[in-house]
C-alpha cells in the first residue's frame, strides 16, 4: 500500500501515476519500448509485434468482460470483422491502410453493438452462448460469401505504405503497433477514471443500483460492446496489415478462448493485466518450442515428444498460474510492488 502520500491538488490526486516511483517505472518502460527495436533480433521483434496486437485485443475484451462484466465468446468474430474490413477496404477499394483501420474499427463497433443487444436481456453463461452465435454467424458469412471475402481462400492485402515507405518489416511495423497499443492503453486508462468507465464498472458490480443512481444501463451496455469491439476491431485490422494475408482460420472460437484466457491470466479489469496476459500467452508457446529445439541435439527422444506435449504443457502452466494467483499476473505484480514498498521492513 502506498501510504503516507498526500496531494494538494485534485489534478495530482487523480493522475494515472500518482507517486514518483510509479512515474519512474512508467518512464523506464517507455524508454525500454523505444530502444528495444534497435537491439532486438528479428525473432524478438516479431514476438513483440504479436504481443502488441494481442495487448490491444486483450484490452478490448477486458473493457467488456473485466470492466463491464459482460462475458463474450465473440472475440474471434470481432477480430475477423476488423481484419476483413480493413483488408477488403485496402485490397479491393485501394484505401490506404491508415484510413482503412479507423473505418474497420467503426464497422466492428457497429457489429459489436448488434451482437450486444442480447446482453440487455441475458447475463452470464446465457450471454456467453448468445455471443457464441456471433462467432458462428461471422465465420459462416466469411466462408459462404466468397464474392465479398474470398471465402475459404486467403485474402491477400498489399503491404502498407506510409510517406512512401513500405512498412513490410517487423522493425517498421513495430512503430505503428507501439502507437496503436500505447493509444489504446491510454484511452482505456482515462476511460476508467472518468464518468463513462465508472458507469461500466457500476453495471458489472451492481446493475440495479447503477440504474437507480441514474446510469442508463441499456445505453451503457451497448456502449461497452461498441467500445470493446472498436479496439478488438483495431487488433484485427492491424493483424491484417501486419500479416498482409489473412484467412478465416485465424479468427475461430479458439481465438476467442485464447483471449479470454489471456485476460483471466493477466487480470480481469486491469490494463497492466491485459498486457501481461498478452505477453504471457505469446511468449509461452514460443518458449516451449525454443526448448524443444534446444533439446533436439541433447536428447532427441525428448525433443520429438515435446511438440506433441506442447498443448498439454501450455494448459498445465495456465492451470498452475490460476491456482497460485487466481487474480492473475496483475495481482502478482501488485504483490511484488507492495513487497518492495515496505522493503526492507517487510515484517
Amino acid at each position, binding site marked *: 500500500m502506498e501510504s503516507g502520500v498526500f496531494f494538494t491538488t*485534485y*489534478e495530482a490526486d*487523480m493522475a494515472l501515476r500518482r507517486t514518483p516511483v510509479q512515474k519512474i517505472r512508467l518512464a523506464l518502460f517507455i524508454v525500454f519500448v523505444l530502444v528495444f527495436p534497435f537491439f532486438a533480433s528479428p525473432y524478438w521483434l516479431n514476438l513483440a509485434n504479436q504481443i502488441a496486437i494481442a495487448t490491444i485485443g486483450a484490452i478490448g475484451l477486458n473493457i467488456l468482460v473485466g470492466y463491464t462484466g459482460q462475458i463474450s465468446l465473440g472475440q474471434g468474430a470481432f477480430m475477423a470483422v476488423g481484419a476483413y474490413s480493413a483488408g477488403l477496404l485496402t485490397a479491393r477499394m485501394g484505401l490506404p491502410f491508415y484510413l482503412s483501420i479507423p473505418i474497420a474499427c467503426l464497422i466492428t463497433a457497429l457489429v459489436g453493438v448488434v451482437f450486444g443487444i442480447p446482453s440487455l436481456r441475458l447475463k452470464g453463461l446465457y450471454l456467453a452462448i448468445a455471443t457464441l452465435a456471433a462467432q458462428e454467424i461471422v465465420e459462416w458469412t466469411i466462408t459462404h460469401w466468397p464474392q465479398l471475402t474470398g471465402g475459404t481462400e486467403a485474402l491477400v492485402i498489399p503491404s502498407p505504405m506510409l510517406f512512401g515507405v513500405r512498412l513490410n518489416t517487423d522493425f517498421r511495423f513495430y512503430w505503428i503497433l507501439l502507437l496503436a497499443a500505447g493509444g489504446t492503453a491510454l*484511452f*482505456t486508462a*482515462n*476511460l476508467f*477514471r*472518468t*464518468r*463513462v*468507465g*465508472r*458507469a461500466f*464498472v*457500476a453495471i*458489472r*458490480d*451492481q446493475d*440495479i*443500483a*447503477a*440504474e*437507480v*443512481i*441514474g*446510469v*442508463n*444501463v441499456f445505453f451503457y451496455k451497448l*456502449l461497452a460492446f*461498441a*467500445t470493446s469491439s472498436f479496439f478488438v476491431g483495431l487488433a484485427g485490422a492491424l493483424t491484417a496489415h501486419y500479416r498482409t494475408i489473412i484467412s478465416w482460420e485465424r479468427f475461430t472460437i479458439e481465438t476467442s478462448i485464447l483471449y479470454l484466457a489471456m485476460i483471466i491470466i493477466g487480470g480481469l*479489469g486491469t490494463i497492466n493485466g491485459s498486457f501481461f496476459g498478452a505477453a504471457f500467452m505469446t511468449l509461452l508457446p514460443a518458449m516451449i518450442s525454443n526448448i524443444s529445439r534446444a533439446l533436439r541435439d541433447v536428447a532427441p527422444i525428448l525433443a520429438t515428444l515435446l511438440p506433441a506435449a506442447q498443448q498439454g504443457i501450455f494448459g498445465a502452466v495456465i492451470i498452475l498460474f490460476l491456482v497460485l494467483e487466481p487474480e492473475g499476473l496483475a495481482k502478482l505484480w501488485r504483490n511484488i510492488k507492495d513487497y518492495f514498498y515496505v522493503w526492507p521492513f517487510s515484517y
Partner: protein
Amino acid sequence: MSNRQPRVRLKAEHLGLHFGGVAALTDVSLEVREGEILAIIGPNGAGKTSLLNCISGLYRPQQGHLVFYDRQGNEHNLLKKKPAEIARLGIARSFQNIELFRHMTVLDNLMLGRHVHMKGNILTCGLYWWRQQKEEIEHRRRVEDVIDFLEIENIRRKPVGTLAYGLQKRVELGRALALDPDILLLDEPMAGMNVEEKEDMARFILDINQERDVTIVLIEHDMGVVMDLSDRVVVLDFGRVIATGTPDDVRQNPLVIQAYLGNEALMEQL
C-alpha cells in the same frame, strides 16, 4: 406548527401491486411534503420496500398513480419512467441490503452519485485532458463535500467491499446524497447498527433534512428513532395504509396497536 401547508412533492394514489397471488400493496395513497421527514413503518412484509421500489421505478404497480412534482412545480408521471430517469429527476435512495459497487473505491461510488449531473461521453472521457479533467475536478469537489459531511475522509480510497457494515451503510447514504436529491428514500438506514452508529446516522439524517433541504422518506423499525426524527408517519400493514399522522397520533391509533400486537419488542417501543 403554522397552518401553511407545504407543497406536495410526491403523491401516490390507490397504488396496487401484486406478485402472482401475493398483494404487496393494496390501494396505497400517500403524499410526501416538501421539507419533511416522512417515516414509513409496519411489520415485516407489510410492503414498505415494495413501495420504495415503485417510487424508484424498480417495480411497476398494476393500479394507481404515482406523481412527482419538481421544484418548478411540473408534474412527472413516475409510472412512465425508468429508474435512471427517476434518479435524474432528483430522487435518490439507499437499499435495505446494501447495494454498493463493491469493487470500487468509496470515492468512485460517490462519484457515481454525480453521474446524472455530468456530461462526459466516451470521447471526452477517453481523451481526458481535452475536456473531461475539468468536469471530474468540479464534481470531485462536490463529492469531497459529502465526504467531509459524513466524516469518511480516511476511507476515501478503500474498496467499499472491504469496509465494516456500518461504514458501508454510511457510504451508501453518501452515494445517494452526492446526487443532490430533492427526495431521499432510505430503506432501514440504521438496521444492524450499534447504538453509537445509530446516533451518528440519525444526526446525519437530520442534518441532511435541515441544512441541505432534502425531503426524506424513511423506513425504519426502531420506533425510538422514528418518533424522534419524523414529522409524519405512515403505517402499512399487509400492503394497506392503516394510519397516517404525527408520531403521537399514530402511537395511539388502535389499528396500529392491533397491527403490532403479538410483537412484544415493538409494542414496548410504541
